[in-house]
């Protein structure tokens, strides 16, 4: 919308009024062409977002207001052209009232947010020292360590989660090692516990935490720490007074990158969690494939999206306020 309005009003202001007619025309032409080129460049990512994000979202939104029916796809159309030439728009809010009315869904939401929140916290606590170490490592080491962080991406995500199943199993190496060391006498249940879910989450999303943190810490001007020391600030205190506040952007970015996919995560709780690990991603999956209830699944997805968008906006608001102050 904004781009369109600019296109209609802009462009001409680059042309000076007093110029002779010939150059004025040429100038106007060049200005319009330049403006079009610029707009085209800006329009490309918008077009991408529209096709691959907005359209699918609208489809999901449409399904969320639809009703279940035995057909393929298993939903009623939202817009109907009736026999007496009336375009009928029928929006079923029942899916949403159903979602909000059922305590199971509420519990799934709360549990998902909690698991994602705790996982994000642990990823931050582990990721920050990692990122700090990499950013402060001598040149040659830095590249190697950096490579090690992204190395897991070279194998399939699913495969890595399966690997954890093997590691955590009753006869897996972790139980074997604990027994060897005499810490336990018979294998303990590690798989299909909340512990396994947290472990999988932190493991899988750690790189998304480390990368933005690394770039923030690496950018930090070290003379600021020297200045702090010069003014009598001990290194540990300088970390909290200088390093931490100046890498806040990286912390925000890393937390969002971990938290958002973690809330909707399906694979990790499904493979590592127990039958009673209730997470929203799994509920959506069950509604969609188990119950073939596309509208309720879509309504759940929309609610999740609204919650997450709320989080992002809140964080942005906080950040903007701090930037001003």
């Amino acid at each position, binding site marked *: 919308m904004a781009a369109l309005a600019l296109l209609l009003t802009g462009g001409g202001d680059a042309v000076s009024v007093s110029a002779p007619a010939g150059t004025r025309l040429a100038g106007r032409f060049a200005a319009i062409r330049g403006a079009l080129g610029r707009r085209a460049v800006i329009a490309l990512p918008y077009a991408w977002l529209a096709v691959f994000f907005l359209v699918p979202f609208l489809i999901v939104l449409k399904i969320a207001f639809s009703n279940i029916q035995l057909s393929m796809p298993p939903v009623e159309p939202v817009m109907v052209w009736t026999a007496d030439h009336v375009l009928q728009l029928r929006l079923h809010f029942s899916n949403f009232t159903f979602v909000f009315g059922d305590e199971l869904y509420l519990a799934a939401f709360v549990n998902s947010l909690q698991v994602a929140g705790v996982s994000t916290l642990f990823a931050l606590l582990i990721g920050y020292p990692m990122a700090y170490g990499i950013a402060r490592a001598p040149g040659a080491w830095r590249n190697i360590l950096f490579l090690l962080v992204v190395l897991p991406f070279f194998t399939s995500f699913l495969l890595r989660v399966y690997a954890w199943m093997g590691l955590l199993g009753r006869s897996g190496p972790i139980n074997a090692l604990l027994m060897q060391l005499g810490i336990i006498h018979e294998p303990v249940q590690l798989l299909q516990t909340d512990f396994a879910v947290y472990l999988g989450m932190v493991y899988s999303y750690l790189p998304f935490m480390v990368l933005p943190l690394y770039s923030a810490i690496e950018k930090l*001007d070290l*003379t*600021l720490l*020297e*200045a*702090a*020391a*010069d*003014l*009598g*600030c*001990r*290194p540990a*205190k300088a970390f909290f*007074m*200088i390093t931490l*506040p*100046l890498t806040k952007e990286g912390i925000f970015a890393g937390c969002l990158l971990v938290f958002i996919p973690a809330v909707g995560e399906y694979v990790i709780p499904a493979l590592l969690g127990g039958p009673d690990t209730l997470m929203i991603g799994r509920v959506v999956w069950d509604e969609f494939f188990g119950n073939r209830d596309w509208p309720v699944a879509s309504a759940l997805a929309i609610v999740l999206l609204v919650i997450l968008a709320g989080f992002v906006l809140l964080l942005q608001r906080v950040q903007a306020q701090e930037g001003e102050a």
Partner: protein
Amino acid sequence: MNAVVGAGVETGQKGPAPYVRIERLTKRFGDFVAVRQVSLEIQRGEIFCLLGGSGCGKTTLLRMLAGFETPTDGAIFIDGVDVTQVPPYERPVNMMFQSYALFPHMTVAQNVAFGLKQDGTARGEIESRVQEMLSLVQLNGYEKRKPHQLSGGQRQRVALARALVKRPKLLLLDEPLGALDKKLREHTQFELVNLQEKLGVTFVIVTHDQEEAMTLASRIGVMRAGEILQVGTPADIYEFPNSRFVADFIGSVNMVEGRLIEDEPDHVRIECAQLGAIVYVDHGVSSPPDAPVSVAIRPEKIQLSRERPEQTDNVLQGVIAGIAYLGNATRYLVRLPTGFLLRVTAPNVFRHEERLEPDERVWLHWHSSSPVVVTR
């Protein structure tokens, strides 16, 4: 080693105990020696300038004083206490960084208060001392600004206030005026000297701008390749340089090679092939006879005239090869019969002066005390 007898040489008598004493300080980075065997004494209340070309180790020396670099060898004493191994946050020293290093997430007031907060100073006192400092650097009303909302000169003053607020006995300044334009620079130099007098702080200033060093310093240490070549007042350094490098580095100079042909305690004669003449110098030189020496003559110490001067020694003839009118002075380039070009500066005393013309034949002469003979 000093070639000039009786001038610019330590008299040997002991003054008050030095405030800063640096003993044979050496810093190596791998195989590279950034600072080599530097010994220095700096008195209380001095403005000491470290002067030298890029990469000669000035910053490294200053960083060792602040405690950011650990010396490979040698020791630093501040007020008689060995601080060589004391971490920076425990030294009674503050530093003003070349890049200012203001904390970008804090306001001007928070930046200035930072050092006092570390000492656990009472809130009320912090506030009054911050205000006092800010009015000293004329930044009242800027308390709530962040560093990125300030001009370069204002940032520099915040950095100065932050470094001074703890009332350090020793303030280290690394090219403090590097980022300022010429006018503001001159103004700030003046302010710095004023402040220093008012607060009685000892300043160690690093610079590669010799004019700045001359303006600010009570004493200058000239560095080259990690070593201190000469320490002295600006006048000492200018009039009695102890080496070719120092003579060349400070101000402009005509440097000619020569050979000692007459070496008496009260005068010497030096044969200079480049000048095609024998230079007479009215003081002795401590150098073996026949040794190669260099003669340094400052351009403003050579006089030009159309008529033959009365003196017989140190008289040459030449042709004006170039003229540059600078306003306060005129700079001439005079070609000698040998082809050597001598730089001569003449003050413009009268407005309607009859100036020399290009290609004019002129006489050159200088007083026999003017040349400086250096042996290294």
